[in-house]
Structure formats: structure tokens, C-alpha cells
């Protein structure tokens, strides 16, 4: 870990000013990922700006019927918030599928979006990695890439975004509110994270010094028919090999609205509007789900150790859609966990 200076910022504007005033500054939220990366010497900030005194921990309704999640509300407080449990149970379920109770007590909503990949090579300074050291090469391609991506990959990087929460946020079409040197702005969730392309060192579209202040959830939380299905190498406390957030609205057995997002498969939570379109107006049957799943994985590419993810993701999509339709507990990991709801 590098030596660094530390300040607790008293407010949002002060934090942003502090960031601009220091070369190599970084914001410190819950620290669950940043401190880890600092210990690995992957992140080497010279100045840390503590955010805990910023008034960004509230969770409150918005005038348009949505819900605003403060960027500094912890993942645990968010998942267990009565309004989230009632109106956005998909989000609660996704959050609780991630990490551990201790980490969820520390991790903030804003920080969750900024988690960096779990690609082994990114973490290991003994190996080249374009995301860590641009231009050094991608070790995962041709290497042990079981955890890596199958969609939207590039020749530079096949890393995945590790968040569970973000998969639900993508499905729910959240909006990210940020504050920065140039004032405030909002970013549609789909535009927040990036694909690796030839700049895999950039995970997202935040500008330098910008600070996430809140996540706005639209009014429709798909609270009647939803499923977050996570597949991993053990029953809990493991990153997703594949995860699926599925949310549906039905009229009888006809699908009238559909959201589908995949985790563990791409550099960002993966949504495929065409796959969702294939669901609309169709009966909620295995055939329909299969077509949507096939579409969602149509562009997938395996790299050897992770090729199984293509078939796994296809099946997971079908299962998640069925679970959302039937609103039955998942007969997989979740059956043994009894997490929300």
C-alpha cells in the first residue's frame, strides 16, 4: 500500500474541491474494494477523501413516484429498507446475493457501482493486464479465464463487472446522479459502465473528480414478478459465474413488460433490448424464454475455461424468467438460502 494523506470531507462541494486540489486523489466510501486494491498495490492513490460526513445516506421517495438511494447508504441499509423491500424486491434480492453481511454493512451504493473486476490477472501484479497497466497485454485471453466475460469482450480485455446490485439496477433502469467539478449531471444506468474496447482501464463514464451522489429508481419496481438468480462456485460469499435479473409484467399469461440483465458475463451489467423485445406480447412459456435467452447469448464468445458460461447463462435466463413468471422460490442456490423476499 502506498503512503497517502487523508481528509474527511465535510460536504459534497468540499469533497469535489478537495479532489480537484490533489493529484492522485480518490474518494473513500466503504473502502471494501478500494482498500483491498490499495493493499494489492493495484490502486495507488496519493490522497484519500473520506465521505462519511457527507449527507448522502438517505433513502427517500422522489416526486415522480420513484425512490432515491443515497450514494452513501450502505448496501445492507438499502436492501433492508422497507421501501426497497416492498417496491424494489429485485434490488434487495440482488444486493443480498452479493458479498457478506459484513461487507454489505460497509459497502456503499455509490461504491458498488465502482467495484473493479475480479479477473485474477488484474489483481496479480506479476502478470500483464491492460486494465491495470494499459498496453501491457491481456493475460486472461489464453489463460485461466473461468471467471471472465463472454459478451462485449475485446482483444484488450475480457474482464467482467463483479457487482450483483448493478445487475438489478440495470434491469430497473436506475439513473446515476453525480456531482463534479462541472456541476451536477445524471447518467442513465446503461450508459454508466463501459465495454472494454481498447480502453479497458476505464470501467465507467465518470469524469475525473465526479462523485456519485445518488441512484434514482424509476416508479416501476417490477415488484410482482421478478427474480435474481445467481450461480456461483459455493452457496454464498462468492462472485457470480453468471447471474440474471429478470422482471416481468403479465396480462394473463401474456408478457406486457420485460427486463432482463445479466451479471458475470461482461464488462458491464449486460442488457439486450432485442432479447427483451422478443418477450413482449408473447406467452410466458419455456419456448418464449428460450428464444429470448438464445437472443441474449447470440453474440457470446467463449475463451476456453469460461466457454461453459454461454450455456449456463442461456439456462439461467430461462430459469430466471420462469421464476419471475411463477414467483416460486428458486430451486437452486436460493432455495437453500432463504434470503429476501
Amino acid at each position, binding site marked *: *500500500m*502506498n*503512503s*497517502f*494523506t*487523508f481528509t*474527511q470531507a465535510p460536504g459534497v462541494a468540499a469533497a469535489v474541491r478537495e479532489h480537484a486540489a490533489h493529484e*492522485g486523489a480518490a474518494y*473513500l466510501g*466503504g*473502502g*471494501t474494494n478500494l*482498500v*483491498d486494491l490499495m*493493499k*494489492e*498495490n493495484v490502486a*495507488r492513490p*496519493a490522497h*484519500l477523501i*473520506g465521505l*462519511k460526513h457527507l449527507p448522502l445516506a438517505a433513502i427517500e421517495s422522489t416526486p415522480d413516484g420513484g425512490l432515491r438511494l443515497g450514494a452513501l447508504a450502505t448496501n*445492507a441499509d438499502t436492501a*433492508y429498507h422497507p421501501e426497497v423491500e416492498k417496491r424494489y424486491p429485485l434490488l434487495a434480492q440482488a444486493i443480498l446475493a452479493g*458479498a*457478506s*453481511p*459484513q*461487507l454489505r*454493512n*460497509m459497502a456503499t451504493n455509490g461504491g458498488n457501482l465502482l467495484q473493479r473486476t475480479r479477473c485474477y490477472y488484474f489483481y496479480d*501484479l506479476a502478470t500483464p493486464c491492460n486494465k*491495470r*497497466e494499459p498496453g*501491457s497485454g491481456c493475460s486472461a485471453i489464453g489463460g485461466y479465464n473461468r471467471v471472465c466475460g463472454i459478451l462485449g469482450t475485446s482483444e484488450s480485455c475480457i474482464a467482467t463487472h463483479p457487482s450483483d446490485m448493478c445487475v438489478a439496477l440495470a434491469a430497473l433502469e436506475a439513473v446515476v446522479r453525480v456531482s463534479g467539478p462541472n456541476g451536477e449531471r445524471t447518467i442513465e444506468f446503461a450508459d454508466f459502465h463501459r465495454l472494454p474496447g481498447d480502453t479497458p482501464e476505464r470501467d465507467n463514464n465518470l469524469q475525473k473528480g465526479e462523485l456519485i451522489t445518488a441512484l434514482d429508481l424509476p416508479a416501476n419496481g417490477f415488484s410482482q414478478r421478478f427474480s435474481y438468480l445467481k450461480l456461483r462456485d459455493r*452457496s*454464498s*460469499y462468492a462472485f457470480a459465474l453468471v447471474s440474471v435479473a429478470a422482471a416481468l409484467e403479465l396480462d394473463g399469461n401474456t408478457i406486457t413488460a420485460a427486463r432482463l440483465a445479466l451479471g458475470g458475463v461482461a464488462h458491464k451489467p449486460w442488457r439486450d433490448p432485442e432479447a427483451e423485445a422478443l418477450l413482449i406480447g408473447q406467452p410466458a412459456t419455456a419456448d418464449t424464454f428460450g428464444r429470448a435467452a438464445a437472443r441474449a447469448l447470440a453474440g457470446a464468445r467463449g475463451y476456453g475455461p469460461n466457454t461453459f458460461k454461454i450455456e449456463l447463462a442461456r439456462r439461467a435466463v430461462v430459469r430466471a424468467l420462469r421464476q419471475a413468471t411463477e414467483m416460486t422460490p428458486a430451486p437452486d442456490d436460493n432455495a*437453500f*438460502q*432463504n*434470503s429476501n423476499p
Partner: protein
Amino acid sequence: MSSHFTQQPVGPAVAALVPAQPVALRVNGQERTLRIAPWTTLLDALREYLDLTGTKKGCDHGQCGACTVLVNGKRINSCLSLAVAHVGDDIQTVEGLGTEEQLHPLQQAFIDHDAFQCGYCTPGQICSAQGLLNEGRARTADEVRELMSGNLCRCGAYSNILTAVLEVLHAQNA
């Protein structure tokens, strides 16, 4: 054939080191002042500066839960937390839960049900279980299993940890 291994460049590495400063922490109800730099984690502050070695270092990366302590009643991984960020917080470690003469109910239940073997994950398990009780989210055995899964036990004492935690949980709810 041979090749040079090139170490990753470390940027403006050998910068001036940030000096240690006095930092006041409230640990187990006591105000403690220690001289640390910002790079000292809460875990290292407890173990190396305050001689509170009950809190364990199993991975130092938030992957095992051995370092679990309670901050303002909530369980966290102290290894991923900077000590300087906890000024003003109420920090409780296993040493603050009970003593050998006056065991906390969880500590007694862990002994009664042989909920540990080597004992290294145990303080973290117990602090985590106290956090679980504080949260009030777990009622069934499956819920306890899931909500205690942030604490690895390589000796594999899980069945007995579950029994111990359930006993205290049920006694508390009775």
C-alpha cells in the same frame, strides 16, 4: 531461451511518507489514542498498536471474516477499513464482549457446543453472530447459515456454530 521479467512501474513511488499522527479511537468503551499514519487499517491498529489481538487476520482482504468487529453495533471487516476513518465511532472487539471470568452468552454457547477447533476464526464468528443478533434478520437455521456465511472456518465447525448461534438467538427471542 531466457527473458527479463519487467516489474510493473510503480509511478511516483518513493514519495515522502505521510507521518504518523495521534488518532483517538473509542474501543470497547475506552478512549485510546494511538500514533498512526492513514495507511493503518483498523485491524492492524487493534492488533499491532492497541494489543487487542483477539481480532484476527485471516486474509487481510475481506475474504474470510476473521477480522470482524462491531462498529456502532454493526459487524464489519476491520481489515478493509482505515483506522483514521473511525474517529468518533464506537468500536467493539471480542475483548469487549466478555472475559474468561464473565463470558458473553455467545461465548458460552460456542464452548458448550464445541463451535470451534483451532479457535482462530472464533472471535470473528462471535462478533459476526452478535452483529447478526443486532440486525434481527435471521430467524431460521437457513437464514443463520446464509447470514453467517461471511465467516470462513477451515476447521469446519459450521454445524456447531449454527447450533450455538441458534441457541442464543432463540433464548433472546423467547
